[in-house]
């Protein structure tokens, strides 16, 4: 059994290609159905986001399945194979596991450490479970990837710190005020930037937003566009500032509209209640000396961008720790995955023993036929139990093997000792089930 991954991602394919290979739009469940119908795979999960389309499958033969999966990618998405081929990558077995774990951890994302991907991986697995295309191998693989995602989130700083200017501003506001839902925001300037900032703050739970503009009509129009915001004329600036906790300045003024002295005069009646000023205007709207006032926190667009850069750098420095976690989990998964190499031998061994038991019972059939049916059933049960008991320890020992060469040596020895190669290798028997239903003879 092999693990195989075939896919494209933002690392290999430009957006023009990625948007054509969109399983989300065509239906992931349909894709899984179509893939299963091709018969080249035993298990399959499709991970599809706007940055990646990846097929994770378990199969018997990697090379042939790989070719079929590439063909499936182009067939199902109606993309010419030649357009797709240069962008497709494929990895097998533990490298595929490592790839999925890195994806789930956010290590393979466009913005390293972004949090959505883990949910998307979980969703992909759920869809495959519902479509009955995920089996023991992929279930184990994906559950381990959830563990990796969670561990990286809690044990490293890979996902910490805002990595966009608007989120950095909201994160700062939360660090100053705690909950920002009950805070009031004043936006000075009714332009597009001011409107976007107000919308973002609203979406983060802020309830009171006041727009101030030199032209009252502009302010009112922007306030309407935001919905649930109010507008105030320019000459009520001091009153609005006095009542606000967060001030966003985004005017097109050529020189500062708020001086240090002006803000000091506003702070006095506030009794030093903290004031967070976000100056996103260019050129700046607020005199930078205003940041020296006690309890005034002044951040301009450059400061916010600098914190974003710091956060990105910090995330980068956490990558090694996250990779170490991925490595550990690949190791653990690998031990389990390799131990599955013994399964065909286990199956063959059980088949062999069961065949001997049945043959002996058949041979003795003429003697047993004199017995009442209950006694015959008992004989069948006892012989079955003996076989089970004999096989219990060898089965467990084989399952515990985790290194491929030992598995090979044991399998070889067992095959010779019990003559396992002489019979067909049946695939229908569930190898580790101890209590199969059986009918008394």
């Amino acid at each position, binding site marked *: 059994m092999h693990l195989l991954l075939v896919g494209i991602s933002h690392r290999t394919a430009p957006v023009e290609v990625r948007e054509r290979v969109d399983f989300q739009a065509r239906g992931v469940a349909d894709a899984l159905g179509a893939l299963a119908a091709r018969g080249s795979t035993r298990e399959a999960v499709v991970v599809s986001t706007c940055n990646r389309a990846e097929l994770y499958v378990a199969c018997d033969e990697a090379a042939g399945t790989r070719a079929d999966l590439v063909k499936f990618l182009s067939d199902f998405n109606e993309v010419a194979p030649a357009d797709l081929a240069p962008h497709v990558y494929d990895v097998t077995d533990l490298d595929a596991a490592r790839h999925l774990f890195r994806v789930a951890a956010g290590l393979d994302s466009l913005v390293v450490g972004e949090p959505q991907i883990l949910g998307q991986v979980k969703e992909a697995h759920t869809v495959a479970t519902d479509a009955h295309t995920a089996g023991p191998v992929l279930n184990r693989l994906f559950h381990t990837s959830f563990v990796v995602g969670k561990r990286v989130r809690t044990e490293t700083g890979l996902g910490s710190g805002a990595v966009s200017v608007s989120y950095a501003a909201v994160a700062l506001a939360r660090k100053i*005020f705690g909950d920002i839902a009950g805070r009031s925001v004043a936006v000075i300037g009714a332009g597009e930037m001011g409107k976007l900032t107000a919308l973002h703050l609203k979406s983060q739970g802020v309830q009171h937003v006041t727009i101030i503009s030199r032209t009252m009509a502009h302010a009112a129009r922007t306030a309407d566009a935001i919905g649930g915001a109010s507008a105030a004329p320019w000459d009520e600036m001091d009153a609005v500032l006095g009542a606000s906790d967060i001030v966003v300045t985004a005017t097109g003024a050529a020189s500062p509209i708020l001086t240090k002295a002006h803000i000091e005069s506003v702070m006095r009646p506030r009794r030093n209640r903290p004031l967070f000023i976000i100056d996103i205007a260019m050129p700046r709207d607020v005199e930078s000396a205003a940041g020296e006032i006690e309890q005034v926190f002044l951040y301009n667009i450059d400061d916010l961008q600098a914190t974003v850069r*710091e956060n990105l750098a910090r995330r980068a420095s956490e990558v090694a720790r996250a990779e170490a976690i991925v490595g550990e989990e690949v190791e653990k998964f690998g031990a389990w995955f390799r131990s599955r190499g013994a399964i065909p031998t286990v199956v063959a061994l059980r088949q062999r023993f069961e065949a001997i038991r049945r043959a002996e019972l058949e041979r003795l059939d003429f003697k047993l036929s004199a017995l009442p049916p209950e006694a015959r059933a008992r004989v069948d049960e006892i012989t079955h139990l003996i076989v089970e008991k004999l096989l219990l320890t060898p089965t467990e020992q084989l399952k515990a093997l985790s290194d491929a060469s030992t598995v090979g040596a044991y399998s070889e020895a067992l095959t010779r000792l019990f003559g396992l190669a002489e019979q067909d290798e049946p695939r229908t028997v569930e190898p580790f089930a101890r209590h199969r239903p059986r009918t008394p003879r």
Partner: protein
Amino acid sequence: MMNFVPLTLYAAALVVYAWHFARRNPAVGRSATTLLVAAALSHTFVIGMQTMEVGHVPVAGATSAISTFVWLLALAYLYTEMTTDERAMGVFILPLLVALQAIPAIRPGVEDRAALLQGPLFGVHVSSLLFAYASFALACVIGITYVLLFKEIKAKHLGFFYARLPSLQVLDRMNQRAIVIGWIFLTVGIIVGGVWAAEARGGLAAGDPRVQAMSLQDPKIFVALVCWCVYSFELFAARRIGWGGRRAAYLSALGFAIVLLNFIPISYFLTKSHNF
């Protein structure tokens, strides 16, 4: 001797809290809390044993009082941690616990209670003051963390503490609450102490030199009143002139420095009225 067990556990908890603070691993955080709970329980046991041994709660001497103070502070901190679900302060509180608990650990034994210290007023006096001091210790630590975070935000360098501490608003509110609680107990403790001293002078122990030394000239009493003034000013300033935030934090650090001064050097070396 017995005080070494809680000391060791406090020290172990400190290490784990520091580890948790640096790595932010929730499992490590939970074990830090578990260790601190174990330390507090063993400390409870030690204090309980001493109480049974001498027949009263061991607060009558400076060393026993420190041990009881450490125990109260550990409980107060654990209460704060459980109610706010915030472990970041532990790494700041525990060094104080370890340093103070070292004193009873190396000066074993419970001081005998002087005859004149029997009676309910004395118990109220000491336990209110110890509780007040524990609150002030919490306020001081919260204040320190406030300043650390404040400086990072002001300097626009959002780093280590930014990622680990709760918001300024929460820290400020916790600080104020600890100060209010501490101030109430400090006030009660001082008033009860005054009433007790007045009664002692009129009673049988009036000839005791320590009772005679109980006046504003005694350093222990004087410094306690200075403390009360500092914290009263802080409460007034926070409400009336907007001295919240960083200034309140500095005042809580100043106040607690005075408390510590009163608690250790003055108790052991200078006071003439409180050397029981």
